[in-house]
């Protein structure tokens, strides 16, 4: 009982105190972090499709990270900085799996977030979301600030298939309505103004109709940016489709049933699968820690990885689980 009360009291007043007594006041945190958030204007404006979203500066020379969306489907993407200055942005690259895009503007000495892949953010962390929601801030008006709490760290597809996003890793679920129209690409920071993550695209559960409020963790943003910079992301079309396991040196049993068990028929000599120690008759049960129940699921999971991402298979051999690392995934065949 007393523990329950203790947590209740802390919940009631703790958050208040944290925000009011932190090293930086929330006002200061918002002021400094908002300078690193930009308003983006591009294609759209049709029914249900906004022509605006948010983005964040990730380098002083004008690299902007945002979500990959239809807003960017134009050669005329405008970027408005916190000081109200307007710049033409150029699409530099995309990460279709994480649905990220990098833009650049011609500028220098800008305040920018650092994508330090620090430790995971704990559930209960107080955060502030900064975004161009509903497009209400124009010109030199500061982006909107909302405060909330990280209420869960869970895979985005926790209810498999309920949300349609190619990204399947962990996201921060927030307890406030942050993911409004125009908010995708906005920054989520902690009370010190450190980047926690980026507001993702608007997602609605097909099962419950509920809109999800979430952010992609900074570490994932960092991986995405590095993938884009190194040119190892595939195109949307190839990455979304199943990946032929033979490119890793795996010959799976012929796919004859609705759920053909993913047994390995053969391992191509000299392949990464052979190097990893896979053997015929191994049953694949997980790709990258994600359970696979069928041959099709294996190729789908491999397809979700970007070229260059590490491939790790869990197989059952003789009643024991064996983990095999196949190294970086090769690019899909055109």
């Amino acid at each position, binding site marked *: 009982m007393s523990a329950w009360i203790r947590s209740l009291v802390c919940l009631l007043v703790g958050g208040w105190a944290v925000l009011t007594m932190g090293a930086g006041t929330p006002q200061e945190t918002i002021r400094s972090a908002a300078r690193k958030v930009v308003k983006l204007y591009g294609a759209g404006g049709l029914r249900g499709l906004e022509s605006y979203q948010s983005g964040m500066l990730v380098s002083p020379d004008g690299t902007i990270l945002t979500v990959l969306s239809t807003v960017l489907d134009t050669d005329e993407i405008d970027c408005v900085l916190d000081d109200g200055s307007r710049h033409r942005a150029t699409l530099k690259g995309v990460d279709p799996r994480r649905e990220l895009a990098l833009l650049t503007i011609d500028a220098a000495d800008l305040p920018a977030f650092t994508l330090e892949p620090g430790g995971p953010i704990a559930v209960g962390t107080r955060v502030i979301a900064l975004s161009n929601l*509903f497009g209400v801030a124009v010109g030199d008006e500061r982006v909107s600030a909302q405060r909330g709490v990280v209420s869960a760290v869970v895979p985005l597809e926790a209810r498999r298939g309920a949300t349609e996003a190619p990204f399947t890793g962990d996201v921060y679920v927030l307890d406030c309505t942050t993911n409004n129209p125009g908010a995708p690409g906005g920054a989520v920071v902690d009370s010190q103004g450190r980047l926690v993550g980026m507001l993702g695209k608007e997602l609605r559960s097909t099962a419950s109709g509920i809109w999800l409020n979430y952010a992609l963790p900074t570490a994932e943003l960092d991986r995405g940016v590095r993938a884009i910079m190194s040119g190892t992301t595939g195109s949307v079309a190839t990455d979304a489709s199943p990946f032929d396991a033979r490119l890793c040196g795996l010959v799976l049993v012929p796919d004859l049933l609705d759920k053909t068990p993913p047994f390995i028929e053969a391992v191509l000599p000299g392949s990464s699968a052979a190097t990893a120690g896979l053997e015929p008759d191994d049953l694949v049960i997980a790709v990258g820690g994600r359970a696979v129940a069928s041959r099709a699921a294996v190729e789908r999971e491999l397809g979700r990885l970007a070229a260059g991402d590490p491939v790790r298979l869990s197989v059952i051999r003789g009643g024991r689980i064996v983990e095999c690392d196949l190294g970086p995934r090769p690019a899909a065949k055109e």
Partner: protein
Amino acid sequence: MPALHHRSRLAIAVVGTAALVLAASDSAVMADIDPAVLQAEAARIEVIRAASRCAVSIFAGDAGGGSGVLVSPDGYALTNFHVVEPAGPAMRCGLNDGRLYDAVLVGLDPTGDVAVIRLLGRDDFPHATPADSDDVQPGDFCFAAGNPFLLATDLQPSISVGIVSGIHRYQFPAGTILEYADCIQVDAAINPGNSGGGLFAETGRLIGVNGRASFEKRGRVNVGVGYAISMNQLRNFSGLLRGGRLIDHATLGATVSSSADGRVLVSDILQSSDAWRRGLRYDDEIVALAGRPVRTVNAFKNVLGTLPAGWRVPLAYRRAGRRHDIVVRLAGVHSAAELAALVAGEPEPPRGGPGPDAPRLPAPRPADRSRPSAETARLPESIRGLYDPRPGFVNFHFNAVERDRVAAVIAKSRPAATAAAWEFAGARAEGGRFQLRLADDEALIDLPTGISRIDPAGDLAADSGPPGSGGLLAALAIWRQLVRSGPTAVGGTTYWGTAPLDPQVLAAGFAAELIDVLEVSVSGMTAQIAVNAGGVVTQMELWTNADAEPCLVRFGSPRPDDPRGLPTRFDVSRGDEVFGTFIVEPAAEGQP
């Protein structure tokens, strides 16, 4: 009502018991908590308690309802136009003391979505203390107190807590007349029914009135994006609203747009506007309005939206690299007939282009929206004698109340033995001497350019002399009659509202002093007379006709040792022309 009362006491008892359990359960728990946290908690509880006391739950029967906030001990409360519009002139309002009060409609600002109502039956209502909303910063904590989803059937308001998400937001009229300019954006939950309720700062002071929210695809419930009308805007309009008027918003008579390099330029201007007369032209760059810098079209609309039509405000513009500072009178956006039609519920064609995400209003209303019309609705007993609709007025009763209040202040300041004839003599700063005589049978001014004379009892409009003044003698005759005999002695006198005495003080924002203004209509002329808190007329303007440049007279403060309390100088101007600066000499020599 007793049942409600009982229920609310029960609710208090339940909450109180819960608090006791919390407090007594484990003293070690409390010892663990940083005293600063406990202090913050205690402060917050106090702020919420105070906010709850002045929160009004408005019930309009089948017409729905909403929220309000008390701002004076005699029961004046702020709410939204869209809350009272379907309710009619009488409504029932609940406070958290568990009692229902009758209330009557006082004034409406349909464009700004503001209404003033008055709760009846007490002169010691708990009320909120306003604060300067320009001090509000993103990240500030805030509280919304109100009646979301009309849940307050026990008359206890709901409190939602959040932070200020943005300031100086502009929200398009979006298919309605309601324009939210310079509003405060919050992430505190603002749901249907919160409309009209107070937005409070962490200090417990009132910073705005909640009224709108962005809704889109998630249904008409809070998505963390609510908007409050700023306290500073409410303050600018409150004098007019208390005067029972149907209020219009302002236009400069010019439109602006952004140039390619981001400057705000005049894109169109009416040649009949005061701005044109004062020298504003196409392609001039607007730099500041009413003392606030203008860097975007939104900023221009934000400032303009907070200012009543009729005010004179400073405007700074740049042309060919040179800055010009002028003072411009703002005109009304609508005609009186248009405004009346709007309030009667006739739809207005949308003005600005409503965006795809045009926010809609949180106004919970049952399906049956039959409004009581003036003909069919019988006035409830509760507001008999307190409701008097007239053209241009929502409720003239309250105009008479304000007019009589100002008249009483003037009467108090008026020396008992004011001479029948007021005589002034002295030098004109521009050269030469003057003599001025104001009496019941004549108003006379003797200037180097000649003598002008009118009969104050006759047709004041017969002579707009002295020539070039725009009606100085008529103005002074009205002034003397008003001060000597009170407002009912001079034509039709109404309470106009409040305005800044000097337009330049608007730069001070919330601190800008606003003073009462009376309006006199006589012989086809209109005069506006500013009266300070001491009952002294400090300025007046007279229009010989609606399109004329008014004659502006500023009255210098009386000499402390002058028992008559008459001014020591008159500054008279018309448009940009100074007519004369009249310095009155001590009257000892020639006065009876």
